[in-house]
């Protein structure tokens, strides 16, 4: 019987958050600490001709200047910490100045003269693809991958910049909502027979769409502080991940990972932008080393807008064929991604969403990712999938309507199940129960009852929507590490970062469950490298629950094996004669014959070898090896790599139902009801599950209705660098109550049954809201994300100014 999984608990860092006692990177000071500030580009595109820092360097208190020359060169298309010859977006850091006070550093920045040559710029990918269109980089306008894509958040490897132009006819066709014939793509895949699929269709829907990227806006900016002692770098950073940073950050600092202590107790938001070490970490660490002083590089709110990453945008086209029975027979999808200055888009992930949400019998995807002179882009909560969910939902509704089918029934007939597939390669999934989620959601929301109600009430009109969110949610092959101390307590060493999802704590419950240790007798060690932390995945992609319940489970199993071996050695019999319970290992046939965990841990220390960490498995990662070495002789060590057999991607899937009231006089939307049902396997931590569902719904509202980059197309200047103008949803923009539930059917490939759900919570809400807006307006498809109030008002006034031509990054 489960003792920990599926029960509420308070993660140990929560009290520190409500008292303000928990420390974020910027809260740390160090004796002798100095301060660095960035000088950033005022131009969207240009060449740095000269830098004159003479006057700044003469100022009292100024300690030095740090430029790209002080860092290893980053070849395009990499994202350098500091620009070298070319600048490619407003806000791009060019240099850093260090001084004994932050005020002096800031004043010194004002004294530095930088001469630029202006270059042409572009903020709309389709303009760059047009004949004669400007290129964001001197080398070209398109990111072309020459190797397999790495995990989300990792630096781009194996890629080059090319100059690709489309015939004007292709640009015009896409802007008009037609297939961009003659356009060149850099990614393409097909499965099945597309023509045959469309030939079978009873109805075909064809629509263009545009989604606009927007910043992550992590509330804690990426301020870092670093200092060096005895050859080691102590680095206070703000990251979603912990151990996953070790190797990359050590490379940035040109040191052995063993000489890095990365300290990150709490992180004020990341949402994909802080999965791995970000380029600007290189400045703090290397500048501190050069000055031989603790150094803090503060990133301001405005700078966080510039360098804190953003969601990629899309301009695209879709043709969907549907059979009379509702089955999607064919989909043809084109995505032009806005990759900003980093170039990478999420088109393939967008296409992956399409495959999971509707399981098309035949499909083609063609994509290209175009550089623009806008901020760097990176993974943002369900990258690709969630924005696709938002624009696809009303299009799917239109397809359902074309064959006279209920919108939920349409999704139900196309729903993925455990035998289904994901992505262009049609890979398997570990399990999926979306029909069950739709059925549960319909009941909870009252889909049938709400559909029977009157739609119009004066100027206000009700709309109902349904949406599906999806993200691949789990990885394999990482390590777990636990220790039973001579005090009998269970110490769970977690290399998982603390990005606010509490998955670091939820996953530790798997070890407590396996070893049957009460939670109050467990302690989690995390948050700094010298707490001896194992090799863990990056905390992105909704993966942690699946990935690290498994690692903690296998580490606990290793500890159990060792407990039984020690008992057999000391008390006679064979290890398999023993079992565990009540923090003891004892003979199954004679429960009084046994050892307490404390006694067994003391014996492990005496016995040494594998029992206390002097020896460890060959297949664990070097990071874990170092952690075990640091713990050797301090207790009974359980350490193992996750070699649990299995195949397929663990999907996180959510269905959302939304009821809104749309005021036709003002365009304002009020969310009356939102219901979300998750297919995430067993719910590991119910209270936290509920909160993840709510938070994701807020993000969904932002994606579907509010958030977007706005650039001045005449000058390439960003117009909404602040939170107020960017409009992340506030208390008053969202519903005050979310109904929720979970199918709660265990995933067969996880000992605890769990899968992740963080990202689809946004996609489902965005899709359901977009679907509801369309429903309120008699099925009008805006084909935009966000669909803002001005777009709604313009539509109601018969003006398509807001939405035509697939314009992006502007009003």
């Amino acid at each position, binding site marked *: 019987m489960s003792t920990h999984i599926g029960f*509420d608990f*308070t993660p140990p860092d*929560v*009290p*520190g*958050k*409500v*008292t*303000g*006692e*928990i*420390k*974020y990177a*910027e*809260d740390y*000071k160090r004796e002798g600490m100095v301060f660095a500030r960035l000088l*950033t580009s005022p131009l969207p595109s240009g060449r740095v001709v000269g830098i004159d820092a003479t006057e700044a360097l003469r100022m009292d208190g100024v300690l030095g200047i740090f430029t790209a020359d002080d860092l290893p060169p980053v070849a395009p298309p990499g994202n350098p910490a500091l620009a070298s010859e070319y600048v490619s977006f407003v806000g791009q850091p060019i240099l850093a100045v260090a001084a004994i*006070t*932050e*005020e002096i550093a*800031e*004043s010194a*920045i*004002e004294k530095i003269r930088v001469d630029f040559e202006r270059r042409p710029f572009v903020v709309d990918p389709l303009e760059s693809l047009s004949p004669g269109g400007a290129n964001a980089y001197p080398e070209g306008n398109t990111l072309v991958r020459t190797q397999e894509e790495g995990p989300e958040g990792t630096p781009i490897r194996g890629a080059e910049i090319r100059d690709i132009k489309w015939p004007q006819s292709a640009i015009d066709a896409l802007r008009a909502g037609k297939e961009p014939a003659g356009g060149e793509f850099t990614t393409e895949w097909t499965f099945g027979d597309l023509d045959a699929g469309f030939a079978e269709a009873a109805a075909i829907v064809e629509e263009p769409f545009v989604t606009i990227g927007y910043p992550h*806006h992590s*509330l*804690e900016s990426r301020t870092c502080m670093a200092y060096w002692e005895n050859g080691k770098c102590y680095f206070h950073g703000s990251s979603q991940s912990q151990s996953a940073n070790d190797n990359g950050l050590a490379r940035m600092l040109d040191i052995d990972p063993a000489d890095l202590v990365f300290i990150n107790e*709490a*992180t*004020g*938001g*990341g949402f994909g932008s802080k999965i791995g070490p970000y380029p600007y970490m290189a400045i703090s660490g290397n500048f501190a080393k050069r000055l031989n002083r603790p150094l803090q590089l*503060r990133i*301001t*709110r*405005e*700078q966080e807008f510039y360098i804190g990453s953003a969601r990629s945008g899309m301009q695209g086209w879709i043709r969907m064929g549907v059979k009379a029975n509702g089955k999607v027979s064919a989909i043809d999808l084109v995505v032009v991604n806005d990759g900003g200055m980093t170039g990478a888009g999420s088109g393939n992930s967008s296409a992956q969403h399409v495959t999971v949400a509707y399981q098309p019998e035949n499909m083609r995807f063609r994509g290209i990712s175009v550089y623009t002179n806008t901020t760097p882009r990176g993974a943002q909560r369900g990258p690709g999938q969630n924005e696709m969910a938002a624009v696809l939902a009303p299009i799917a509704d239109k397809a359902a309507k074309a064959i006279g089918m209920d919108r939920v029934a349409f999704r139900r007939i196309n729903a993925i199940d455990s035998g289904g597939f994901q992505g262009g390669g049609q890979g398997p999934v570990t399990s999926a129960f979306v029909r069950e989620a739709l059925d549960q959601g319909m009941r909870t929301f009252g889909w049938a009852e709400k559909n029977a109600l009157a739609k119009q009430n004066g100027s206000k009109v009700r709309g109902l929507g349904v949406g599906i969110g999806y993200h691949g949610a789990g990885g394999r092959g990482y390590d777990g590490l636990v220790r039973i101390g001579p005090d009998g307590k269970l110490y769970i060493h977690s290399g998982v970062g603390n*990005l*606010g*999802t*509490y998955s670091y704590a939820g996953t530790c419950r798997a070890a407590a469950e396996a070893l049957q240790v009460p939670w109050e007798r467990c302690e989690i060690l995390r948050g700094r490298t010298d707490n001896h932390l194992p090799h863990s995945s990056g905390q992105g992609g909704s993966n942690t629950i699946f990935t690290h319940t498994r690692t903690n489970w296998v580490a606990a199993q290793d500890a159990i094996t060792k407990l039984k071996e020690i008992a057999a050695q000391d008390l006679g019999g064979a290890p398999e004669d023993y079992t565990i319970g009540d923090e003891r290992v004892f003979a199954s046939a004679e429960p009084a014959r046994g050892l307490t965990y404390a006694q067994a841990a003391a014996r492990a220390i005496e016995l040494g070898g594998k029992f206390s960490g002097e020896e460890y498995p060959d297949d664990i990662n070097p990071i874990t090896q170092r952690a075990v070495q640091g713990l050797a002789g301090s207790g009974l060590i359980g350490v193992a790599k996750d070699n649990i057999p299995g195949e397929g991607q663990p999907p996180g899937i959510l269905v959302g139902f939304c009821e809104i009231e749309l005021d036709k006089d003002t365009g304002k939307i009020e969310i009356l009801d939102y219901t979300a049902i998750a297919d995430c396997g067993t719910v590991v931590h119910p*209270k936290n599950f509920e*909160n993840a569902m*709510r*938070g*994701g719904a*807020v*993000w969904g509202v932002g994606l579907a209705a509010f958030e977007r980059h706005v650039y001045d197309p005449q000058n390439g200047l960003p117009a909404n*660098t*602040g*939170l*107020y103008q960017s409009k*992340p949803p*506030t*208390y*008053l923009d*969202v519903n*005050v*109550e*979310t109904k929720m539930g979970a199918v709660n059917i265990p995933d067969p490939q996880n000992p605890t049954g769990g899968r992740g759900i963080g990202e689809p919570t946004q996609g489902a809400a965005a899709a359901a809201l977009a679907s509801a807006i369309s429903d309120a307006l008699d099925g009008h498809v805006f084909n935009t994300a966000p669909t803002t109030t001005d777009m709604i008002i313009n539509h109601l006034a018969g003006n398509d100014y807001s939405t035509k031509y697939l314009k992006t990054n502007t009003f």
Partner: protein
Amino acid sequence: MNLQLTRRRFIKGVIFSGAAATSGAGVYLAANAQSGNGGMERLISLTINGRTRRVDVPPTETLANTLRYRLNLTGTKIGCNRGECGACTVLIDGVPNYACSVLTHNIKAKQVLSIEGVKADDGTLHAVQQAFIAENAPQCGFCTPGQVMSAVALLANNPRPTKAEAAQAMSGNLCRCGAYEHYLNGVLRASGQIA
């Protein structure tokens, strides 16, 4: 609006002090120790969390900076430093204020309560803090101190708010994680409306 220190007064204070803001990106609103101070006394007494603190503060410095960098009260967070997010919310004479938008010299005669002063002297957490823990309300936690301060002020004025009233009262506090409903549930729990 019941703000005792308004944004306008803050801006006027900066202008009269003779300082010029460096840029929109500036952390210190030209709070340069070398800048002219119009003859104002820099060493001032502040009442923070019931204690009198003598502190050397330039006339252009904000309360958020004084709390964090002179008094080491780092529970008050700076999320935007321009009055948009509410992470730096403190109570001044019981009224929620953005500490990033208040000049320290303007609150010399006032009582400031920061997050560090919310729990009782014996360490007992305030009902809002207890409720936020019970609701697992914080996610990343960076906005949480400000949310606590706004909730404490709300319940002092309206002991049993509805969820909608609470949302209105706390709408000056942005939460990028979207933990709004958790905080609202915390307010209802702290006010005894849910158990």
